[in-house]
């Protein structure tokens, strides 16, 4: 229902959002890699003053099994205050939760009790196929024309993947977003520069190349995604493609600057076929075109082949595998998850072309198996993966699972789920909160984290 005043979690600008109250709850997608019991959205208490701090205090199970919950988002956010398409009286209330494997879309109500969310609507894959011709639902964002959801494949599991729109009140599927997709075929992530009327999309691959794990021949043949696509956000038209070249594979998470006047952002490339390094690239406006520049290269670490999974043995090295990144609300710090080596690295990106490392912690990792002060079991597996930053930039949360079918390729003895939190020092520097460690219940693995009231990858802004 529409309200009389704007939702108090909407902020006109990222500067104002950074002054938002501290989050007390986190919603975390949790999935069963065996696909025998339902996936869930878990509610984690992140209020240090609470007696149940660092514990799962509630969860809502999906009605089916095998969804593979992955990314999810809010029905409405700060972009509702935009002057060209204002909808300020919608509540930030519902989580839009896609199943990456099932293509089923769940609408979850976080009111009246935010600790006990409930499912209010399930949109079946057949309806999405019928109205939008897509499947394998991935990322969602609230934006100017409603709720945007992207999909990695068409209804038959082939290219092209793309984006479709949902009505932000009724959650009805409105249809495909693209009007002219140009050469775009593969899909992975998407986001936009509202101040520059530009959408950006990235690339992974078609379901046959990831649903049973990464396919070495496809990877070594440079057949996974390696391009960025730039679109006119309002004409819904493809404008430009940038190819990172044969060496670079898996161009994943997109983090545009929050300040809508800035025309740059960061994207992570998981692996280089030349030396297994990972890289961060800055995209930026260069005259009338968009351009990219590699600004960070994270090298592979030499390792004893006996400690490596079959896929890496021949290389005698651990690939960093940058699988997620996140940018603080003030556009100052970029957090980079190295799922292979186990590092979470903080860079000062005040100058987006000259990042400086300002902090690093290690936990898990293919070889290092680094521990956490609060664990009792010692060596941890999995590594830093989906990362989320509080709006004030002082707290960083992350979990350790990548994707059901890929986890065992790099962690053959399994991934036991955990979620941790970092405290951020003023001016840079990160350290574990020694009192925060969620030893994830067996049978589920945690993936994306969303924070109560919004976080650094949930909202976009129209005012500087």
């Amino acid at each position: 229902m529409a309200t009389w005043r704007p939702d108090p979690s909407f902020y006109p600008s990222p500067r104002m959002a950074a002054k938002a109250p501290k989050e007390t709850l986190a919603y975390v997608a949790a999935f069963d890699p065996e696909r025998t019991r339902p996936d869930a959205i878990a509610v984690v208490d992140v209020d240090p003053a609470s007696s149940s701090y660092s514990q799962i205090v509630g969860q809502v199970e999906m009605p089916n099994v095998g969804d593979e919950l992955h990314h999810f988002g809010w029905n409405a956010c700060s972009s509702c205050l935009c002057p060209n398409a204002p909808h300020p009286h919608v509540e930030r209330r519902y989580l839009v939760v896609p199943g990456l494997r099932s293509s089923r879309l769940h609408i979850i109500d976080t009111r009246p009790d935010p600790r006990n969310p409930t499912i209010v609507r399930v949109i079946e894959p057949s309806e999405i196929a019928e109205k939008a011709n897509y499947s394998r639902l991935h990322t969602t964002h609230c934006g100017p024309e409603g709720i945007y959801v992207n999909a990695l494949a068409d209804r038959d599991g082939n290219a092209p993947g793309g984006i479709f729109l949902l009505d932000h009140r009724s959650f009805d599927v409105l249809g495909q977003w693209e009007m002219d997709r140009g050469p775009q075929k593969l899909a992975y992530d998407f986001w936009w520069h509202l101040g520059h009327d530009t959408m950006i999309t990235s690339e992974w691959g078609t379901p046959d190349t990831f649903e049973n794990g990464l396919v070495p021949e496809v990877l070594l043949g440079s057949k996974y995604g390696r391009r960025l696509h730039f679109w006119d956000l309002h004409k819904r038209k493809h404008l430009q493609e940038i190819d990172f070249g044969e060496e670079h594979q898996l161009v994943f998470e997109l983090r545009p600057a929050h300040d809508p006047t800035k025309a740059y952002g960061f994207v992570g490339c998981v692996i280089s076929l030349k030396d297994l390094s990972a890289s961060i690239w800055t995209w930026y406006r260069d005259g009338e075109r968009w351009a990219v520049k590699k600004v960070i290269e994270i090298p592979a670490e030499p390792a004893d082949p006996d400690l490596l999974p079959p896929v890496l043995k021949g290389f005698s090295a651990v690939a960093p595998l940058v699988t997620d990144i996140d940018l603080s609300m003030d556009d100052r710090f970029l957090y980079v998850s190295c799922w292979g080596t186990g590092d979470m690295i903080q860079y000062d990106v005040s100058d987006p072309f000259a990042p400086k490392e300002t902090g690093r912690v290690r936990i898990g990792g293919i070889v290092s198996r680094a521990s956490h002060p609060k664990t009792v079991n010692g060596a941890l597996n999995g590594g830093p993966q989906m990362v989320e930053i509080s709006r004030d930039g002082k707290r960083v949360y992350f979990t350790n699972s990548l994707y059901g079918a890929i986890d065992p390729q790099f962690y053959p003895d399994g991934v036991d789920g955990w979620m941790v939190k970092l405290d951020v020092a003023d001016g840079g520097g990160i350290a574990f909160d020694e009192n925060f460690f969620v030893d994830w219940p067996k049978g589920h693995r945690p993936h994306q984290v969303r924070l109560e009231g919004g976080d650094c990858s949930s909202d976009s802004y129209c005012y500087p």
Partner: protein
Amino acid sequence: MTTVWPWLSIIGLGAFHGINPAMGWLFAVALGLHRQSRRIVWLSLAPIAVGHAASAALTLAVVVTFGAVLEPHHFRLVAALLILSVAAYGAFCGHRHRVRVGMRAGMAGLGLWSFLMATSHGAGLMLVPAVLSLCVVDRAGDLAVAGSLPVALAAVAVHGAAMLAVVAAMAIAVFEWLGLAALRSAWINFDHLWTVALSATGIVLLVQ
């Protein structure tokens, strides 16, 4: 036979449309902030007012033309039903529109945006009862187009001027002094008010 009340209501509706952030002043502020320019805020006011006035003029021209050919009773019924259906559409489907103009809008884009916003919200329709009461009626009770069009256009001019004055005052006050933080609490649901106002317009026409 003119009274002051229709004109006052036309001015009042101009102020009501102008104060609604969705009708333009907020866009002018945003463009000023993006381009760090007070000049842009002032310049943006022109296409916003022109787009709004053009939409109202077109609406009223169509209404007056139909008023001249339809029987008075039928005409009021048709106009009222049209207004009520626009109100219902706005309440239930108004959020579902395409967004055609973004933050890189130039002056032409802004004018188009203002025209589309005013038209889709039925801004001109809200003026219909006041304008009809000002229009010239011939012996058969039909509207006389030749006499009525100038009155309608004068109404649009007065309405547009009132709207522009309020848009300018809001945009400048927010850009120069108030800042955008006030939006978070002060932006009341104009969509609700708009639906109520438009529905009332339709009902007035029905019972008048």
